[in-house]
Structures are given as C-alpha cells and as structure tokens.
C-alpha cells in the first residue's frame, strides 16, 4: 500500500496553482485534505505523476457572508471550520446540521469542502447539500474563471465539470428562502461511515401553510446527488399532510433514484431506506417551516 513515485509541488497562490495545472494537465492532481486522494494513491487506484498541494494556498481558506444573504466558502476550508462557523449556523442551518455526519473528527480536521465536491463521491454529504442549496461552484484556470451551478457540476460517479487544468476555488451557497424548513438525515452502518443513503430536504410554505417549494436531494442512491422531481409534483400547492408527505417520499424513492447494490445493502434495501429517510426529513422540514 505504497504509492508510486510522484512529483510534488507546493504553490502558495491560486495563480501559481493553476499555472502548474496548466503545465501538467491530466498528469496533475490537486491535493487538498488528502482524505480521499491519499488512500486511492496508496491502493494505486490513482497514480498522478504530479501532486499540486493546495495546503499552503491561504487565500482559499475562508467562510464569508455573501451579499444575497448566503455564504461564500473557499475551496480549502476544512469540514471542521464549516461545522464550527457561526455564520454557517445562522445562514445555512441545513449545512450546519449535515457536517457532523461527515466521517470522524480527525477526518473533518483535514478534509475540505473543495476536495469533497471535486472528488464527487455520490455518497458524500457536501455534494448533496450543495445541490440542495442550489449552490454554485467557481472554477479557475489560467484561462479564467467560471461559475457552474451545482446541478451541472456533478456529472456522474466521481466525475465533475472540472477540466484537467481547472480547480475549484469557491462555493457560493444562497440562504434558504423565508418560511423554509430544512432537515438532513442519513443511515450508515457505523457511526461516521459513508452513508448507505442520505436525504436533505428544504420545504418552503406559503403564508397559508401550503407547500410552495420542495427540495429533496438524495445521496448514495445514484451516480451523483439525486434531486427529486416527484416530491415537488406531489406536494407543491398542497397541505403538507402526513399522507401527502408519505406519498411524496414513496414516489421519490420509486422514481427519482437509481440505487445500486453492494456488500452493505441491496438496491431494494437502499430504496426502502430512501423512502423511510425521505419521509422523516420531509416531516421534520415541514415542522420547522411551520415554526418559523
């Protein structure tokens, strides 16, 4: 479990980092917290010839208020910083609720927001939350910078819209609309494991208490974060009754996900879990929306 030899570069600015990426292209990989990349290198599943270590690029580590009421997060911000940020707790309660589900404290001390979404593990929390929040991802290369909506950033299993010479520099997460409740829940085999299934919900109610908008995003049951189309179809314009939420959860788990089976859970069990968890988070999100 030793990686093959590689070249190691340690830029201190984004400009320097993207210059290296432009120079080495496909052969290079940015190194963020290393919590996913280093194990894959030790298993020799990834064999990058060049590592561009972002850990000295200080300008990428921050959590800032955005003018639209949301939050801007630098790519090298550690999970633990997000977890403990008051700004995140106030403005992005859904994210705040979710971060403790990521792995263990030791891993949250190292792992980064940018690393997690670039890695694009379909069972990871941050990709799903970024989608649930209708977040946007800012990519940089020597060619310039561009913003990609989260829904378009995640393309498939471990696959994103990143070009080989590009890197993630910032994530913009808008605040949830008023009268919106949120909830996140997941089921994992052990405390801190990647979840078998996770679900994030954000439900906006009208002044009359009917459902105005629903975001229901699944993780672990497809090749990327899966946004439910059925849940809004069932719920928007309706009273959020228990039966309606049940129907939304059931239909979402039938229509909107594409679970796979492995040693931990069959596809059928994942689908079952998705419906149970979807019902639970929808219920809690509605309760929170009603309390606001």
């Amino acid at each position, binding site marked *: 479990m*030793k990686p093959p030899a590689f070249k190691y570069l340690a830029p201190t600015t984004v400009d320097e980092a993207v210059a290296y990426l432009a120079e080495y292209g496909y052969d290079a990989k940015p190194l963020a917290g290393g919590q996913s990349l280093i194990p894959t290198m030790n*298993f020799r599943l990834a064999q990058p010839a060049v590592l561009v270590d972002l850990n000295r690029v200080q300008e990428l580590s921050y959590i800032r208020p955005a003018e639209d009421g949301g939050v801007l997060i630098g790519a090298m911000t550690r999970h633990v910083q997000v977890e403990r940020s008051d700004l995140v707790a106030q403005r992005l309660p859904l994210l705040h609720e979710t971060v403790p589900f990521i792995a263990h404290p030791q891993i949250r001390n190292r792992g980064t927001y940018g690393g997690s979404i670039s890695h694009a593990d379909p069972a990871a929390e941050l990709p799903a939350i970024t989608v649930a929040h209708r977040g946007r991802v800012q990519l940089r290369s020597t060619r310039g910078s561009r913003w990609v909506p989260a829904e378009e950033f995640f393309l498939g299993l471990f696959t994103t819209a990143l070009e080989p010479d590009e890197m993630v520099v910032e994530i913009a997460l808008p605040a949830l609309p008023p009268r919106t409740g949120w909830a996140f829940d997941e089921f994992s085999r*052990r405390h801190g494991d990647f979840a078998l299934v996770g679900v994030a919900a954000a439900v906006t109610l009208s002044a009359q208490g009917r459902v105005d908008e629903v975001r229901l995003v699944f993780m672990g049951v497809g090749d990327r974060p899966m946004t439910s189309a059925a849940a809004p179809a069932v719920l928007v314009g309706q009273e959020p009754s228990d039966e309606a939420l049940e129907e939304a959860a059931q239909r979402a788990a039938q229509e909107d996900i594409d679970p796979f089976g492995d040693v931990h859970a069959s596809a059928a*069990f994942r689908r079952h879990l998705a419906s*149970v968890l979807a019902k639970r988070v929808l219920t809690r999100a509605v309760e929170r929306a009603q309390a606001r």
Partner: protein
Amino acid sequence: MAGRYFGQPIRRNEDPALLTGQALFTDDVHLPGMVHVAFLRSDYAHARIRSIDVSRALERPGVIGVYTAEDLGDYWQPGPLLVPPPPVEDIIFHQRTQVPLAKGKVRHVGEPVVMVVAESRYIAEDALEDIFVDYEPLPPVVDIEKALEPDAPLVHEDLGTNLAARVVQRKGDYEAAKAKADVVISRRFYYDHGLAAAMENRGIVAHWDPKMQYMTIWDTTQAPVVIRNGLARMLGLSESQVRVIAPFIGGAFGPKIMMFYPEEVLIPWLSLKLKRPVKWIEDRRENFFATTHERYQVHYAEIALTRDGRILGVKDRFYHDTGAYDPYGLTVPINSQCTLLGPYDIPAYHSEMNVVFTNKTIVTPYRGAGRQHGVFVMERLLDIAAKELGIDRTEIRRRNFIPPDKFPYNNEVIYQDFVPLVYDSGNYEPALELAKKLIDYDRFLKEEQPRLRAEGKHVGLGIVAYVEGTGIGPYEGARVQVETTGKVNVATGVGTQGQSHFTSFAQIVAEQLDVDVRNIRVVTGDTAEFHWGTGTFASRGAVVAGNAIHAAAKKVREKVLQKASEEFGVPPEELELRNGYVYTQDGRSISLADLAVKANPLRGAVKPGTEPGLEATMYFGPERGATASGVHAMIVEVDPELMDVKIRKYVVVHDCGKVINPLVVEGQIHGGVAQGVGNSFYEEIVYNEDGQLLTASFMDYLLPTAMEVPPIEVGHVETPSPWNELGTKGAGEAGAIPTAAAFVQAVEDALADYDLEILEAPLSPNRLFELLKEAKQKKEG
C-alpha cells in the same frame, strides 16, 4: 481469597512504555543495510500458472532480487502439519499444507506467487507491477456444501475430493434418546465468524550476521520457540544460532499462532542468502487475504427433549470451511463439535463434522476458535425449544445445567488436546442468577418491555450460557531469578500480544517473594531468554505458563528462605518475607539483593551440589484443560424501519476460576465482547462466486468502533480449577464466544410481533430487511 498481589487490580507494568510510544514492535526494527520485501499475490481464487515473467522487474533500479517457487530449489517444501488429527475412530483426514510460493497452481486470492526484494518497500511494490503471470483461470470452489457434490471442481486434484476431514463423535445412544422424546426440533444453522483484524498486521525482520554466524528474527508470532526450532531445522542451522524475538505485538487473537506462514519461511532464508537484514511488514490489504480467517459453518442440528424441557440428546451434522489448506488440523471444528455441548448435561450426542477445502484463505483459530459456532447452535436450539414448550428461556437452561456435584464431568468426546473433554469444575446456576439480576431480567420482561412496546419501541433481551475449554497442554516453563540488584527476573517461552503478562505473571511471583510488582521484569517470547514452550493460544497463558511461573517462584522462595536461614541461623519457618526483605522474629533483616549476592559467592568454597543464585526453572503440564464458563445478557433496541440495532445494555458474568488481576480479566472480556459485537452485526467476510473477497478493506469489513460497543458490566463467579495449584482458568476468549447467540435472541425478542426465527449470524441491516420481508410474506400467506 485474594493475596497481597495475586487477585489485586494492579495497574499494568507494560503501560508506561506502550503509552509513551517506547515499546518495540517489529516494524520499529531498523538495521543498517536492511532491504525490503513485497509479494506478488494471486488475483485469482483458482488458476493454473502457465508462466511467470519477472525480467522487467529485475531491470528496475533498486530491485535486488525476484524469486518464484522454482528459485527456491529444495527449500520449497509444503509447511508442516501444526496440529495432527485427533485419535478418533474411523477418522478421515487429508493433510494439504501451504507452500512458500505457489507452484503450478494458485488456490486462493492472495496466495503469494513471487517475492521481490528491493532497497525500499516502495520500489519493491513498483516492481510487482512489472511482473507478468500468465494464469489459466479454473472454476473456484466457494460454497462448502456444493464443494462436496460429485462434479465440483477440486482444490487439490490429487485428492479426488474436497473433503478434508470427517470426524464422527458419539456419546450415549442418540436414536434411543430420540425415541423417548416428547419433542424433537431440527433446524439448519449458518454461523460465520470473521477475521481477527489485529491492529498490528504481521511482520518479520530477519538478520543473518555472517561474522557472528547468528540469525536474529523479530516475528509477530504467538509461538517464538516453535518458530525458532522449525526455522533452524529448515535453514540447516543449530537452534543455538537462531534467536526469535516476539516483541510487543499489537494483537494476535489466534491467526499469529498459525505457522509457518510463507513469509516466515522466506524472509530468514533471504537474509541468509543476501547476508543483509530483510524486512517484510504485511500491509492491511495483504492482511485481508494472507493472514488466516475463521469463517463459516453450516449445521443441521436436532435436539430431543422431554415435555418439561430436559435434553435427552443432540444430533448434529456440520460442514466447516477450512480454506485452501489445513495446516492447523481440526482445532476449529473440534472446538465447535465439543463446545456445542456447553454447560448442559446431555446424555446422548451424535456429531458428524465435515471439513471442506475451498479456494479461500486458510482457516485457523481466531478468538473463540470455532466455539462460537457450537454455542450458537446449542443456544438457538434451546431458545426454540423453550418457545415450543412454553418454558422461560433461562429456566430451560437452568434445568439442564450440569449440577455442581457432577464434576469432574466427562463429555466423552475428544477435545482439541486429543483427550476426552472432561470439565474440571463449574457452578453455573449462580452465574445465571447473577446475570439475571444485573440485567434485571424479571422486571424488564414484566414491566419495562411492555411499557416500551406500548410506546412503539422494539426492545428485546438476550441471555445465553456457554463454556470455554481453556488452559490445555502440553506444557510451559519459566525461570525466576532474584538478581543481585534486588530486581526479579521472570522468563517464559509464551509470546505476548496484549494479555498483560508483564503484570499478571509478575503478580504471581510477587505473591511468593513479596516484592513490588514494578520490580519484577517479565520477559516473554525471546528464545535467547527461555527456549522451552509452545505458545500463547487456547486461553492458556495464565493457566499453563502461570502455574509454571508459580512453581518456579515457590522454588525461589524456598531458596531465599533457606539462604536466609543459613545467614541468620534461624529455621526457615521462623522467617518472614516482606517488601523485598527477609525478617527474623527478633527484628534482624536482609534484603533479597544482598541474599542474591551471598548466593553467588566469588571466592571461597561452597558445599558440593550447591546451585548458585536464587533461581529456579520449573515446568507445568496439565493432564487436561480447565473449563471456564459464563453467561452473557443484553438488551437491544431495533428500529424496524432502518433495520438498525442498538445494544442498550450488556452484562457478562464470568467464571475463570481464580482471578489474578480483575482489571486484566475485565479488559479481556471487554475486548472479547467488542469482537463479539462485530461478529453479531458488523463484520462479515464476503466472497463472491468467483472466490473474490469483496470485503478487503476497512471500508467494507466493518469493525465496530468505540461508538458501536456498549458499556459492559462484568460480574465474577469464582469456581477454582482443582487441576492446577493457582486454581486459574483461561479468560482470553470468553468475551467473544456467546455474543452473537445473545444478540440474535435479543433481536428476535425485540421483533416478537413479526414472528421471526433467526438461524444465522452475523446479521446486518440488509439481512434484517430481508428476514422481515420473508416473515411478513409468510404471515400474509
């Protein structure tokens, strides 16, 4: 009961070094000029090797050598049969032991095929990618029952069958017993025990010093003496030229008593050849394939009872997966066969064991060593019987316990030590009563459970009993010496892998010599210090080595008193040993250190026949093992939507005879229970139909963490073993043995409204989902 030292909760001597990172583990050995080995291992479960091309690897800078089976010449030999088959009539046993490097054919994924030695492990691993092996894949043998079908592919073609062994053992006349029975219950059981996953993987450093003509080997083995003797013989050296050190070891749990692993044979050979120190440290990925497993058995078991729940007889036919080779003989399945009988008075028993070769990693004992399987079958049979007869599950057990006046109790079946399994002593009912009290059995069932059920919670209780044969022979030895420094030296041949030997062995000596435990230096597992003994296995350290140490310490005590008697002119009976001094009744005293100086005079004459020093070497070989016992109980809560199970409470009542150090025993139990919890709900070795191991990392092989292991309450019952002077029984494996049986019973109880009958372990959320679905379908009809 307890002495000044023996029986006291004394803090561990070894902890300061371990906790400050000062303890030497095999990977800490760094020697000038040391080279590193990596192995190319088979990716196939079963394949013929057409050819191997290592030429590109040899060209890689930093590579020193590349070896295949052909390059080993006469040194290439199948390993020895470590445990011969037991003397049972009409036994079938086919010996097929592992080889250093695969020749002609590979028989399991991870079997070593090529050895690369290089200036660093990195380079060695790079070179593995340069090697090309041309394999012709063969159909693999994976399922143990299908393996015995006539057209099954063969793991060892020359045998003409995959049956490695068949052993039938009998006690009484089962068919006659059955004819008298009011109820007969038969079921098929599946029990899978995982792999040890010790924190430290295996490792070996061999250093042949050509000028000294001396080989030093650091090996993560549980049996350094046996390794030394075997290697000396294989390498053509004198035993006195080989020193094997088993340093601190980060857990072993059984697989490190297996020998000789291919790497153990090859690394010293390579050092001799290259005249350089050679290191191989198993990485975690290798550990999953190359260190032995325990795995699964299938039992077809039947129990015959009277209406009032008395067992008349038990019949069992079972299949055991031994993997590609069987160097450890039949220890695991024999343990299953014998331990199934448990603490119960069973007049008739008929058990047929079938051991099957498969294209999988070798199976050898892992903590519990097959006992889990037997206990699970028996306890489940009793649970089902209790339900069917309308008898409380603890009552049916109580009624069948061997009564205290029936000991020694002969089970009339041959155990792993080749003699009939006779229980030395036991007192099972008090343990059951104590466990019921600690888990609050009656109140839970009468008040707590109904109340929680009314709240919609699914809570259940599990309670099971078991025995554990421990402390078997043949023998161990020890040398105890009072030094002129006043410190006491203890050396024994067994290795240590976390059992607290440095403390509990010191306590045994302290009890005799009355010296501070911290002034007693215990050396285990270094053949230069003590070269007789067999090893640490079968929960035998405290019994066998412990009693040898006790005997040697007593002898030294006699010598101390004798010497002091000569000094003071006072009879030994009138002397007292206290805090490192010998006192006379009139207040004179001498330290042990000064006595040791006097016992080793440098000038003058001594009486003929005088032995120098205050030292003694003694051996202990029990005729039979000592049988420990206990009861585990737990309360679980099941979420029948998420299929999650949380253990809310866990109680162990344990009887390991005389306790040397209660902290140590409780630590052993806690660790065992943690592994039992893993075996109940988290850990599972999964092979697919191609013989590929699907759970080959800690992402997929789920060890329970501190978050999954509940707090454990331990109660002690002490029934000393009459067959050794200390009265000790082993405590090493007990924590791990009955956990899954209790867990499954508790889950069934929690899901009582679903009418589940669970006949397998481990469970998992996914498996519970399937079982509940089946139960619902059955109910609906």
